[in-house]
C-alpha cells in the first residue's frame, strides 16, 4: 500500500523516473539475500550457491497454469549463459558477449543498454560468452572476454571504471559472473585451453584497483609448485569460469578451478598439478589459501572442477556440520567439510571408468583406459558448468548430468606457443564422424542422437549418493536447476524444453518448448507480490508467471 500511495503522490515524476524505489545493494543485503527472495542479488541467488528460493507462489498444483509473460530477444547470436540479477523490480543481465541491459522485471521493457566494444581479435576457447553480473551499491560489475573488469552505473548504464585483469592476447578471458564480498569484486580468469596460468583476484569496488591475487598455479618457492615438473607450471591452466560461493561466518570464499594445461597429455606434467581441478577456500579479505581439495590430480581428460560449490548446514553422522556438496565433471559426487576441506563422502553419480573409486581421502584411484578405448565420461564430463541446486526442505541435491557419454582420448606432443591453443591431444567421439561434444549452437534437429549420450536430471540423497529419482531426456542437457520452497524443480534441456518437476517424486508437472537450447540456470523473483521464473533459451530470455 505504501508503494501505491507514493505512486499517486509522485505521479508526475513517474513519467521519467523508475517505477520502483531502488535501495542500494549493501554488503549486508548480499549476506542476507535469502531473506528477500523477491530479489536475486548474485549469480547463484545467495552466497551458499544453493540456487534455492523461498518463493512458493508457483507450486506443484498450479505449475500447469504457467504462461509466458514477456520475452527479451538478445541482439546477439552468442550462447546465452548469463543468470540475470533482479533488484527491487529491475532486472540486469548480459547479452553475449559483453552488453549489459536493465529491464523492468515485470514487463521486460528496457531502461538502458550498455554496449561494450571488443577488439576485433579475441582469444577465447569456447565461445564468446558471459555468465552474468555482480552488484554493490548502485554499481554493476562485468568481466569481459578481453579480460577486463568494468564497473557500470546501474541507473544510467554508463561505465565508471575499467581495469585490465589479464592479457587476452595470451588467451586470458573473463566469462564468469563476479562475486561481490564486502567491498571487493572477486573473479577468476578463463583460458584453460591456451596454456594460461590461472588466478583469482579481488578488486576494490569503488576504484577497480586490484586488492589481492591468488595464483592457482603456484610458482617456485610457493607451496604446490613441487607438483609440477620443471617449468610446466608456467602454462599450467587452472582457469576459473563459474562463480563460487562464500561463507560469511567463516569468511571463506570457495571456487572451483579448471583443467591443467595442456589438457590431454598428463605425461608432460607428471604430478598432481595443484591447484588445477580443485576447490580452493580463500580468505575473502586477503585471498590467502585456507585449504584445498583436488578432485582430479594429473587430469588427462579436461575435467574442469568449475561447478558451483553448494554450501549447506546439515546433520552428518548425528552431528551438525558445515558441508559442501559437489557433483564434479569427473562423474563423482562429493561431500566435504567446508571448514577444513576434509573429505566426508564420495560416489559416482554416472557410469565412469577413468577411476575405480575414491580412497579414504577422496583421492581417485585412476584407471586410464588403453589407447583407442572409450573413457567415461567424455571430455564434457558427467556434468559441467550448469548450476545444480540443493533444497534444504527435501534434503536432496539436484543436478543435470550426461549419461553414457564417452570419448576416445589421445595424446600428442605440443610445444607451447603464446596465444595459441595448448591442448596436446583430443577426445574423439566414439562413433565414426561423431563429434566429441555436441555444439552449443547447433540447430533444432538432434543430430547428436541418444547413441552418443543422453541427459538426465538426478535427485541425489547427499548422505548416501543414492538417486532418489531420475528424469531422463533424449538429448544431453546444459540447463541449470532451480528449486523453491514449494518443492518444485525448474530446469530445461538442450532440446529447448523448459519444464517443472516435482521435487520429491521427479514427475513432470508442466513443460513448454522454447525452441532453442537452454544453456544457463533458470532463476526466480517476484514483483508486486507475483512470482516470475526467467530462463534463457537459444538467443532469448523468457519470463513466465502464473495466469492472471
Amino acid at each position, binding site marked *: 500500500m505504501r508503494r501505491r500511495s507514493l505512486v499517486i503522490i509522485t505521479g508526475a515524476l513517474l513519467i521519467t523516473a523508475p517505477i520502483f524505489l531502488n535501495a542500494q545493494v549493501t554488503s549486508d543485503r548480499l549476506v542476507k539475500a535469502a531473506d528477500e527472495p523477491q530479489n536475486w542479488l548474485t549469480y547463484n541467488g545467495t552466497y551458499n550457491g544453493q540456487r534455492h528460493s523461498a518463493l512458493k507462489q508457483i507450486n506443484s498444483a498450479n505449475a500447469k497454469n504457467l504462461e509466458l509473460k514477456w520475452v527479451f530477444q538478445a541482439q546477439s547470436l552468442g550462447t546465452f549463459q548469463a543468470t540475470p540479477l533482479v533488484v527491487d523490480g529491475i532486472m540486469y543481465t548480459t547479452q553475449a558477449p559483453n552488453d549489459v541491459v536493465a529491464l523492468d522485471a515485470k514487463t521486460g521493457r528496457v531502461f538502458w543498454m550498455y554496449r561494450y566494444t571488443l577488439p576485433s581479435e579475441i582469444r577465447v576457447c569456447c565461445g564468446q560468452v558471459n555468465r552474468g553480473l555482480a552488484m554493490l551499491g548502485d554499481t554493476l560489475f562485468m568481466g569481459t572476454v578481453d579480460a577486463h573488469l568494468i564497473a557500470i552505473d546501474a541507473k544510467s548504464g554508463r561505465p565508471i571504471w575499467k581495469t585490465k585483469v589479464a592479457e587476452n592476447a595470451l588467451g586470458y578471458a573473463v566469462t564468469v559472473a563476479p562475486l561481490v564480498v564486502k567491498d571487493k569484486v572477486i573473479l577468476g580468469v578463463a583460458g584453460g585451453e591456451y596454456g594460461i596460468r590461472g588466478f583469482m583476484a579481488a578488486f576494490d569496488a569503488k576504484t577497480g584497483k586490484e586488492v589481492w591475487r591468488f595464483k592457482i598455479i603456484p610458482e617456485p618457492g610457493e607451496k604446490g609448485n613441487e607438483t609440477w615438473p620443471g617449468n610446466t607450471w608456467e602454462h599450467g591452466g587452472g582457469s576459473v569460469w563459474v562463480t563460487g560461493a562464500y561463507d560469511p561466518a567463516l569468511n571463506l570464499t570457495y571456487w572451483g578451478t579448471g583443467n591443467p594445461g595442456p589438457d590431454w597429455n598428463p605425461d608432460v606434467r607428471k604430478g598432481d598439478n595443484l591447484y588445477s581441478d580443485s576447490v580452493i577456500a580463500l580468505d575473502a579479505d586477503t585471498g590467502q589459501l585456507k585449504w584445498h581439495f583436488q578432485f582430479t590430480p594429473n587430469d588427462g581428460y579436461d575435467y574442469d572442477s568449475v561447478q558451483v560449490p553448494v554450501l549447506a548446514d546439515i546433520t552428518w553422522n548425528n552431528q551438525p556440520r558445515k558441508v559442501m556438496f559437489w557433483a564434479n565433471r569427473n562423474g563423482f559426487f562429493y561431500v566435504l567439510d567446508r571448514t577444513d576441506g576434509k573429505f566426508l563422502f564420495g560416489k559416482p553419480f554416472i557410469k565412469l571408468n577413468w577411476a575405480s573409486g575414491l580412497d579414504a581421502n577422496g583421492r581417485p584411484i585412476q584407471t586410464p583406459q588403453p589407447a583407442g578405448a572409450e573413457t567415461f565420461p567424455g571430455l564434457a564430463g558427467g556434468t559441467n558448468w550448469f548450476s545444480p541446486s540443493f533444497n534444504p526442505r527435501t534434503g536432496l541435491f539436484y543436478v543435470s548430468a550426461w549419461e553414457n557419454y564417452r570419448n576416445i582420448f589421445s595424446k600428442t606432443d605440443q610445444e607451447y606457443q603464446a596465444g595459441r591453443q595448448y591442448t596436446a591431444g583430443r577426445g574423439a567421439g566414439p562413433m565414426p564422424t561423431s563429434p566429441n561434444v555436441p555444439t552449443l549452437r547447433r540447430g533444432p534437429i538432434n543430430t547428436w542422437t*541418444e547413441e552418443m549420450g543422453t541427459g538426465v536430471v538426478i535427485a541425489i540423497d547427499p548422505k548416501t549418493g543414492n538417486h532418489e529419482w531420475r528424469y531422463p*531426456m533424449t*538429448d544431453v542437457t546444459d540447463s541449470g536447476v532451480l528449486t523453491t520452497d514449494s518443492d518444485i524443480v525448474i530446469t530445461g534441456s538442450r532440446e529447448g*524444453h523448459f519444464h517443472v518437476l516435482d521435487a520429491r517424486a521427479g514427475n513432470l508437472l508442466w513443460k513448454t518448448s522454447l525452441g532453442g537450447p537452454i544453456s544457463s540456470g533458470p532463476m526466480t523473483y517476484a514483483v508486486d507480490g507475483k512470482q516470475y521464473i526467467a530462463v534463457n533459451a537459444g538467443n532469448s530470455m523468457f519470463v513466465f508467471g502464473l495466469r492472471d
Partner: protein
Amino acid sequence: MSRLHFFCVVLSAGLVALGSGPRLRAQDHTGNYAPMDIQNGALLYGANCAQCHGVGGDGIPGIELKTGTFKRAPTDQDLARLLTTGIAGTAMPATQLSPGETNALVAYLRTMRDFDSPKVTVGAPATGRGLFEGKGGCTACHRVDAHGSRVAPDLSDVGATRGADFLWRKLQDPTATMRPLDRPVHVQLKSGKVVDGRRLNEDTYSLQIIDSQERLLSIMKSDVKEFTISRTSPMPSYTQKLAPQELADLVSYLVSLKGGI
C-alpha cells in the same frame, strides 16, 4: 580387365605389401589412404592442380609433388590446411574444396608417386547416373533434385558433404555407415495404428518422421504404446549387385552431386 579394376588391383597389391612387411617404400603410403579417396583426389588434382603443377606433379621447377613429402606440410593436417588457405606470398591460391574433397586431395598427393597419373582410371559420372536411376534402383528410395522417392535421405548434395571413400563404403555396408539420426523407426500407437518411417528428429517428448508414404508425421511419445529404432539400414549392399566398375561409376556420380538450384 577394366582400367578401374587394374587400379584396384594395384592398390590391393599395396595393401598386401604392407601386411607382409615393407618391400617397396613407395607403397607404404598407399595403404594409409582409402582407394576411393585417392581416386577422387586424382580427379580433383586434374581439375584444380594440374594446370600449374602438371599432370605428373613436376610442372613447377624445383617442386616435385610425387615425392609425397612437403616441407611446409609435414602432417596430413598441415597439408589439408595449406590446400585450404594457399600459401601467402606465392602463386599457390586458397581453394574452396569441402573437407571431404580436401582429404581426398591429400590422399592423392601423398600417394601419387605410386601411380602414373594419366593411367589412373576413375568412374564415369554419366554412367553412374544411369545406374542410379536404372539398374541400381536407387530412386526407389532416394531422390536427386526432383527425381526419386523421399523415403530415404535426399542425395542432391551428397557430394558436397561426403567423400568418395565414405560413399564407396556406404554402398558396400549401408548399416555400418548409417547416420544414427536416419534410423528406421517402427511406432505402435496407443490407438492401435502402426507407423513406419525414417527418423528426422527426436526429443524427450516427441518424434518427427517421414513415413513410407512420404508423409511428415510428428508423434507425441505420450501417444505411443511402443516404438523401436532399428540399427539395421533398409538399404541393400551393392557389393553383389554391381560390378566394381559400376560401383566406381556410381560413386563418381554421387560425388558430383553438389546441390544448389
